[in-house]
């Protein structure tokens, strides 16, 4: 399948995937699959998830042919082979906009198998406990009213669920993990400035992203080293994707204190950019990062981050650059787009044919 398809397959011979934009970075790399495998994506125009000229990745219509990708205005039964939808733990909140997008599309699409990519984990500490996120239950809203929350199990139903890390599959209790992949040469390894950078979403899911620790790290790093941690989207606003890649590519150190984000993409982007990564241990980080060799696994302690950063930036610049280079090699090997597309295509092909592959917990990429 892989060989015969390369970039030449006409639309009629492609697996027709109906879907919608969700996570821009994820889908930027996902759409590239159409260049190698016989897949065409049809994305619903909608007001909740939009890709436009200001988005930090080139728009699909500027990259793909009509045989590979197009926007559509509604779902047409009988036209597509499979649907690909997206959720995260916030979708169990009955009032959230992106939740409506998933729920309504899930209702409308009834004649084909559906893959649902679950980008999160059951951690939604600001709203619900994990049991409620997974299985649903009753909760009390801010007005003191009893509200029934549909858990992820009910939201997903019979759909096939993909998750982003092995630990996410364990935490949800089901789901097929596919670890992301990226095109290595799209990330720029540039001469490193003595800069410490982080790229974590600026709002929502505080515990999941461990923002309390991040705030403490920023404070301690400033206190110990005099360096302002550059938080992209917060105190450094990249103008576009090139600016983002340039800024990241010139950063000596990248920190990732997240508590539950399954395989943070920005960490991989930093590794591919040759940054020396200091990361929390969760979601398998310990399986591919060896402290002092190709990055650092850090305890959830701001003093540890501050002390390590001080040593690296002020006393061991050259060694830090070398660690970043080895981290880049690790990322090129593990998080390559070819492996990702191969795994994803295998799943799409099987689910489109009515199968539901089960992950047995052994087929890991490391």
């Amino acid at each position, binding site marked *: 399948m892989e060989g015969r398809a390369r970039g030449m397959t006409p639309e009629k011979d492609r697996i027709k995937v109906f879907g*919608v934009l969700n996570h821009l970075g994820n889908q930027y790399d996902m759409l590239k699959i159409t260049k190698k495998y016989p897949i065409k994506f049809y994305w619903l125009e909608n*007001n909740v998830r939009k890709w*436009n000229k200001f988005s930090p990745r080139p728009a699909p219509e500027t990259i793909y042919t009509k045989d590979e990708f197009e926007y559509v205005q509604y779902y047409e039964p009988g036209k597509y082979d499979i649907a690909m939808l997206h959720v995260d733990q916030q979708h169990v909140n009955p009032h959230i906009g992106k939740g*409506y997008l998933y729920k309504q599309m899930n209702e409308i699409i009834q004649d084909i198998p559906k893959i649902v990519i679950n980008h999160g984990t059951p951690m939604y500490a600001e709203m619900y406990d994990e049991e409620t996120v997974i299985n649903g239950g009753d909760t009390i809203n801010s007005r003191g009213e009893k509200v029934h929350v549909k858990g992820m199990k009910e939201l997903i139903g019979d759909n096939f669920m993909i998750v982003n890390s092995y630990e996410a599959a364990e935490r949800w209790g089901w789901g097929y993990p596919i670890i992301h992949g990226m095109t290595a040469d799209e990330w720029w390894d540039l001469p490193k400035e003595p800069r410490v950078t982080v790229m974590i979403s600026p709002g929502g899911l505080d515990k999941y992203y461990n923002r309390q620790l991040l705030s403490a790290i920023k404070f301690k790093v400033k206190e110990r080293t005099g360096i302002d941690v550059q938080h992209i989207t917060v105190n450094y606003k990249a103008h576009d994707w090139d600016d983002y890649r340039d800024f990241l590519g010139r950063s000596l150190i990248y920190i990732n204190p997240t508590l539950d984000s399954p395989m943070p993409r920005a960490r991989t982007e930093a590794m591919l950019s040759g940054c020396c990564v200091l990361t929390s241990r969760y979601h398998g980080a310990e399986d591919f990062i060896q402290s002092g060799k190709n990055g650092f696994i850090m305890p959830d302690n701001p003093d540890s981050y501050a002390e390590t950063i001080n040593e690296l930036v002020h006393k061991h610049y050259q060694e830090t650059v070398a660690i970043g280079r080895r981290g880049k090699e690790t990322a090129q090997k593990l998080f390559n787009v070819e492996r990702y597309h191969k795994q994803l295509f295998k799943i799409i092909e099987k689910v489109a044919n009515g199968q539901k592959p089960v992950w047995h917990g052994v087929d890991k990429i490391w």
Partner: protein
Amino acid sequence: MVVRWQTFEQYHNKKDIGSTRIRVHNLNKFWPESGLYRYGEKADVMIFQKVYCTYDYKLPAHYPGVRILDTCDPDWLQTPDIYIKETLDNVHAAVVPTESMREYLQGMTDTPVRIIKDRFVIEDFPKPKVHNGELKTAVWFGYAHNAELLQSAIPSLEKRGISLIVIANDDPMLYRYANDSVAYQEKYQYIKFNQDTLYTDIQKADICIMPKGYRHEDRWKSENKTVIAQLCGLPVCQTAEELDELVEAEDRQKHIDPIYDIVKVEYDCRKSVQEYKDLIDEVKS
């Protein structure tokens, strides 16, 4: 024929928006083919209610089939990222509630712009108020941010000893505009807006005051609040002089009875449904 609405409520993920309730939900109760759009749904007719093309959202221009824009507020005055002209040019028809909006929007497009008034489910209203005794209480209702219009009316009410009920999403504390605000606060009552009790709350007063708006956006406003008050059986005053003519119960009753007979026919939302059906037929032909 499947008719679907993408509403202001859906677009902004809000609840209980007056314009969506009046111009969409009311009509859907009497229009079996019509309903709220669900993402991904195919419809023969899409009506975009205060949903416009923007730089990154073109569904109002791209949706196959009949496309209608329903706009009831001058959103272009304060929202720079909406493309009203592009939307008008790319739909088959536009619908507005007032002649001032029709005239203005028609001036910028060849797309037909028609008036479909804000109308109501008449059966939802209680029996019209039967007036007794002298005028004691006036009512005003609406969004709190529009309540400033009453600034000059408060001293007039104060002078006449008339109490004021304000029904709004938030308390605009209008008694502060009285000459003796401490004393007038005793005659001031704020009721939190609740659609379920709105009409009976209005009927707690003898008269409704709706001073003429002086702001730019008031030029475009529909008469929907006036009609709501009239369907509750209350005369509506714009000035103190009008109010002075309605002090006696008999005068108020004589004033409102013929108006009520007209508005209950003219502002029945079934009429809007028929107007939409006629418009769709016209567009299709």
